[in-house]
């Protein structure tokens, strides 16, 4: 990202391969915003690597004209970690899904998050297995009927944001596939953040789980079911900003601003650097379809923390070990204790 080259356009980040996603898939929007963000960040195609696992979303690297590796199921985070540790100067992005990152790759996910390598993770969550044709995923809602849950899912779903915060995440965000503008801005913030950035995208699968996020996208309902987080701003939602959230001790409470004397200034002010509040926000996870009283689902940046990255700490150790010069091959071969035979 130097000023010495003209910035590329989103088109320059388009590869010669035709995306093979289904018509209407939420993945198209992510691809478009990602390329636009890379262009706006003035990245060079040769300095970017997109790493993925397996699943519909993991086809992402093929469609971006940068370096890319499409790996094996669940292991994108591990592969990206090795690449970033070896080559810290590269801009490494991970494309992964709810099955890839949270089921088969769950272990790599939590450990990558805690290590805090500077990776930008785009986690496509469609609450279903698409590529294998419609089995339920670890984020599917209880009761969802699929080919492998004909009587309804009985697994309690993973709350991605809570899991990520629990694992020690330093950049935790959620965005809706159709909120292109917000997505692009969050991608840019994720890139700027030095550490593992997790961007969970609610992505609609029109074939196997159409409308999974309907409660948050339906025109009539979304004002009451969604909450957009803005740094330094009060938590306000509802049509015309008629509702707000206030913290009553540790208990978040919905306030009807029109019916009460509480003003916006008295509401919970979003502070993306407050881990305790972020943890509470992550628990805004009610299903508006199954309960009358629910907290709105937050979108935006939950939490940001400035913490050292794994690769910088490792490089610092190497620099220190090499303070008096790098070891030579002769020294390596001889080791610390030798003797001579004449």
């Amino acid at each position, binding site marked *: 990202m130097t000023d010495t080259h003209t910035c590329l356009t989103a088109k320059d980040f388009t*590869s010669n391969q035709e995306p093979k996603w289904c018509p209407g898939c939420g993945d198209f929007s992510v691809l478009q915003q990602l390329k636009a963000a890379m262009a706006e960040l003035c990245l060079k195609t040769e300095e970017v*690597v997109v790493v993925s696992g397996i699943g519909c979303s993991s086809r992402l690297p093929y469609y971006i004209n940068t370096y890319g*590796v499409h790996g094996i199921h669940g292991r994108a985070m*591990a592969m990206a970690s090795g690449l970033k540790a070896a080559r810290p100067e590269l801009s490494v992005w991970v494309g992964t899904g709810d099955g890839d990152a949270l089921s088969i790759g769950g272990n790599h996910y939590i450990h990558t998050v805690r290590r805090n390598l500077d990776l930008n993770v785009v986690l496509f969550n469609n609450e279903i297995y698409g590529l294998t044709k419609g089995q339920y995923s670890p984020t599917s809602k209880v009761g969802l009927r699929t080919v492998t849950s004909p009587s309804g899912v009985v697994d309690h779903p993973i709350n991605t944001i809570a899991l990520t915060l629990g694992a020690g995440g330093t950049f935790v965000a959620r965005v809706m596939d159709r909120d292109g503008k917000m997505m692009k801005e969050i991608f840019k913030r994720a890139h700027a953040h030095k550490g593992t950035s997790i961007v969970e995208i609610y992505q609609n699968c029109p074939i196997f789980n159409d409308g999974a996020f309907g409660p948050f996208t339906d025109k009539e309902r979304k004002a009451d079911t969604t909450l957009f987080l803005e740094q330094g701003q009060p938590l306000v939602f509802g049509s015309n900003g008629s509702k707000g959230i206030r913290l009553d001790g540790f208990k978040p409470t919905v306030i009807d601003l029109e019916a009460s004397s509480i003003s916006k200034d008295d509401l919970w002010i979003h502070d993306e650097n407050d881990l305790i509040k972020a943890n509470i926000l992550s628990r805004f996870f009610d299903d508006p379809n199954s309960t009358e009283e629910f907290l709105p689902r937050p979108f935006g940046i939950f939490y940001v923390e400035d913490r050292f990255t794994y690769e910088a700490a490792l490089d610092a150790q190497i620099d220190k070990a090499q303070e008096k010069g790098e070891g030579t091959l002769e020294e390596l071969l001889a080791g610390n*204790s030798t003797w001579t035979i*004449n």
Partner: protein
Amino acid sequence: MSDTAILNKNDMVISKTSVSVLFAGDSGDGMQLTGTQFANTVAVYGSDLNTFPNFPSEIRPPAGTVAGVSGFQLQFGTTGVYTPGAKFDVMIAMNAAALKANLNNLHHGGIIIADSEGFDAKNLNLSGYGEANNPLEDGSLNDYTVFKIPVISLTRQALAETGLSIKIIDRCKNMFVLGVLYWLYSLPLETTIETLQSKFKNKQDIADANIKAVKAGYNFGDETEMFSQHGRFCVAPAQKKGGLYRRVTGNEASAIGLAAAAKKAGLKLFLGSYPITPASEILQTLAGLKKWGVKTFQAEDEIAGVLTSIGAAYGGALAATNTSGPGLALKTEGMGLAVILEIPLVIINVMRGGPSTGLPTKPEQSDLLMAMYGRHGEAPMPVIAAMTPVDCFYAAYEAAKIAVEYMTPVLCLTDGYLALSSEPMLVPSPDELASITPVFSPERKSDDPPYLPYKRDERCVRPWGIPGTPGLEHRIGGLEKQHETGNVSHDPENHALMTRLRAEKIANVADIIPDLTLDNGPEKGDLLVLGWGSTYGAIKKAVEQAREGGLDVAHAHLRYINPFPKNLGAMLGNYKKVLIPENNCGQLLSMIRDKFLIEPVGFSKVQGLPFNEMEIEAKITDILKEL
């Protein structure tokens, strides 16, 4: 072992060509440390040397019991030292349990140096002998030469004036025993004194106490009447090639081999790894080589170990991962990815007894077929097997060379026996090491034709185009790739072509590996003993002894298992019979039969123990009788 007696003025010195010693005691007695000190001394003295630790898999087993016995075995000598010795000539037994656990491996008539104070009622009961049956007193050891030394009393006596606590003084008892042994084998104390000085440089009183204990033990040997009728021994230094030496275990050698390969290739070494017995020392050693720019990544699991390495290799590092059997099983999917990505990767598998957790601390050679065939799909990969602790260095080095120059994952097999054994290594000079030449695709301009990441050279090797290079932007993955472009392809003919090209590339590695040479014996004859891996020392010794006995037998040892050396088939045809001893149920045998359509004789040992030369010599004798 030809022994000659020389009468000195004061004592008799018996010259020996090689001696095998076992240091055995309770886990807390410091036997590993004592054995290591002795090994360093004989190494610097110029002996040939081979050591092997034998410790319980539990970290703190009950003190005084047979389960808690820790041993350190070594053989040193003037010639013919290829193993730590099948049986010991001398056993140091610090307590009753140590004697009980190891007596069956002491040569008939061998020497026992026993700490008589480790044979008190408590120790006799814990060991299972029972307090009424002290083997030092009841005549049951009459066939051995037994020296009973009250080690604790003598150590306390020697260190009485140091002012140190009894607890600290008692910890010096192993140094007292070491001193006795130095006297008995006419060895100098300097190496140990220097080591103690540097180890305790900030605790001078401890250093002094330990040094005093070693000297006291040595002087005890001089003064006591105990040894006078037996004399002492002398083992002349070996006729070794002159030069600089260091002592390495197999695991250390593997680690240094990788680091040296990276240096020689001008690459950065990256090791993604998860701790596992008996392979962890490779990760531990490399973690300490930051001065050489080595990056180690202790991953969350075995799978991440190999996948982080694949990521690093994609980025242009010399990448490696190390493990043992259960871990290799977990890495197989990742190894298949490395095969189809065609990127360099070294996998060091330190084999142990299996299946499952099996015998984690015991060696076996039973992962050979998994190394060869244990991946889904057609996924051939070069396989190299190290034959000695020092050879672990060269095997890892060569694995790295093949990986980088052929753009392929390479499996390097060692085992728990090699991993923990040590021997002197003639330190090579950098110039003596084979060149390793990575070729990175150069930058391309926008009007150059498109980059073809899977365009192969005449050896079927594809180029290494690494991120950060302008003009090479490309996408690769685990899906089958179109010939040359590397784009995803499901075309049937293309898959057949790519499968064939990947196999041809591995077969072409045979062009740079040396012909198999005989280690011993005639070029044609009755019997060839074909070994691989850590059986080298036992087979070598067995064949030497059989040949001394007039038998027509030869020995060749395979290091390159995939592909085989080009002359292997012809060599096998020169003998009436081929014997393949393996610490498995006949895995190499199966490969040889499959490839060359011959029927070798197998000889299996799956006891979690290495072969000894007597077993192999007996087998050779049996086969030749039947011919």
